[in-house]
């Protein structure tokens, strides 16, 4: 494969992975912005979505109905989560709500486990194939898995809708106002409970899209499948500047790009055309950046995160907030 094609292929991979991170990170950031709550159970919302989709499809429910069930079911879980677990802790210290979010996550995971048991399914369930997400698209010399293209497209569309919502609608504007100063928002006449529930609902919609795509890519669903994505989404949100939706989206794509680069660059030694590249360059890559380095990807990602935060403590778009008055 030629170098430009290789680069293009990797770029599409990066944007597709980045879309999933951005979808998850935007949901995390919305809730954090308003409540100061890092909702680690957000990853389990994604898992619940994947389970609902998997069980519905296994039961033979047609795809469109299964998708509706998935989104509605995840929204219900998110609303109940807010109402039962987080609203009573509205004035509690941040550490209490953080621990609560882990507890909520555990409960959801055990719920998924029990449901599998009762449905006599194994711990890890094979995700039923969805026809239009199977296979690859051939574009010239490029082979792109369809699910990557759909991730990329769906991610961009949903994030565009989210942007329109927070900039063009009164409810979206109220959400940004509540994120900035929740008491001042109340004094405007904004019902902050309504705004908070809205943030959870939107988070659930984005998480169910991510959950479906993730399950299709992985081919399986299991109860702790949400853990790694929520951690990545958290990192993405921190990279972008925590609390802002735009920051979370930028951070999601930046993280996707970084991860793919960390896989793509070490593979260069095998890709570079031997005829036109000097042997020293190829030897350099094969010696110092061998493709086996890719197994250390996460270590490099975290190292990059530490470096970024040393230089820009507020993240890419963030500012360090010195406002301790509220």
């Amino acid at each position, binding site marked *: 494969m030629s170098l430009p094609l290789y680069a293009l292929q990797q770029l599409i991979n990066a944007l597709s992975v980045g879309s999933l991170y951005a979808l998850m990170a935007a949901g995390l950031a919305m809730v954090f912005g308003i409540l100061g709550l890092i909702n680690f159970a957000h990853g389990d919302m994604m898992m619940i979505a994947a389970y609902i989709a998997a069980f519905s499809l296994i039961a033979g429910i047609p795809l469109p109905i299964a998708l509706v069930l998935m989104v509605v079911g995840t929204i219900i879980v998110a609303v109940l989560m807010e109402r039962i677990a987080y609203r009573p802790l509205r004035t509690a210290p941040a550490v209490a709500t953080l621990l609560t979010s882990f507890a909520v996550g555990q409960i959801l995971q055990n719920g998924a486990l029990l449901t599998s048991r009762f449905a006599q399914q194994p711990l890890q369930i094979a995700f039923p194939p969805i026809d239009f997400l199977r296979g690859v698209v051939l574009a010239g010399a490029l082979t792109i898995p369809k699910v990557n293209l759909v991730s990329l497209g769906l991610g961009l569309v949903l994030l565009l809708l989210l942007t329109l919502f927070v900039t063009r609608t*009164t409810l979206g*504007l*109220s959400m*940004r*106002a509540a994120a*900035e*100063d929740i*008491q*001042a*928002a*109340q*004094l*405007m*006449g*904004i*019902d*902050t409970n309504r705004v908070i529930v809205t943030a959870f609902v939107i988070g659930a919609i984005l998480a169910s899209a991510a959950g479906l795509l993730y399950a299709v890519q992985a081919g399986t669903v299991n109860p702790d499948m949400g853990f790694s994505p929520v951690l990545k989404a958290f990192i993405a949100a921190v990279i972008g500047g925590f609390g802002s939706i735009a920051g979370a989206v930028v951070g999601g794509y930046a993280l996707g790009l970084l991860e793919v680069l960390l896989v793509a660059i070490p593979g260069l030694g095998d890709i570079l055309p031997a005829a036109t590249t000097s042997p020293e360059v190829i030897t350099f890559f094969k010696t110092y950046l061998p493709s086996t380095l890719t197994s250390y990807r996460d270590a490099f990602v975290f190292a990059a995160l530490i470096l970024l935060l040393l230089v820009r403590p507020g993240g890419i778009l963030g500012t360090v907030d010195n406002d301790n*008055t509220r």
Partner: protein
Amino acid sequence: MLQIDHIDVYYGKIQTLKDVSLRVDDGELVTLIGSNGAGKSTTLRTISGLLRPKQGSITYNGQRIDHLKPHEVVRLGVVHCPEGRRLFGHLSVGENLRLGAVTQTDSAEIERTRGEVYELFPKLKERNNQLAATLSGGEQQMLAIGRALMSRPKLLLLDEPSLGLAPLLVEALFAIIRQIKARGVTILLVEQNAWLALEVADRGYVMETGKIILADSAAALRTNPQVEEAYLGGGA
């Protein structure tokens, strides 16, 4: 219009208001003066529902409002323009004004009110697309008041509007407060600048350590030796 009867308010275990009673009649401009920490802001925060009285009652046009949430109080037409402006700094001037009208549903009406606010504060129109945080102190105060007016208040609670403003701007601000009153808005004004507040007000209450210690017409308070000594520059 507004009647506060014998309210006690606590911040945690500390009592900040003790047996406070006051009333504001339709069309009046009533001021609440007193030194820092006397409980003036606490009184406003209790009216707007951010705090709840432990004892006593607050009635607005005959309806108990002391158990309502802040957004429900706003819907009744009681709007609190808080101390320190509390603007949404990352949002534009126009967006801040739009949020002030969040309780309003008629968009033609909202635009008409916006026109009135621009008339009162022409600077805000010029700066419509600018982020609120980039405004000067005086402009920020104008925006805070303009934002409160966007909800078409019947009773406006103004908390320390002159705080941190240059003397010339304070004069202009009080001229605007007079204009707002002339438009038929009833105002409860909390001020540290007692002299100016008593100039514009019809009646006044003086607070000290969580209690109302004096209540009289503004004219009478201006010449009250006790007030004069404590707040009107008798040494301070």
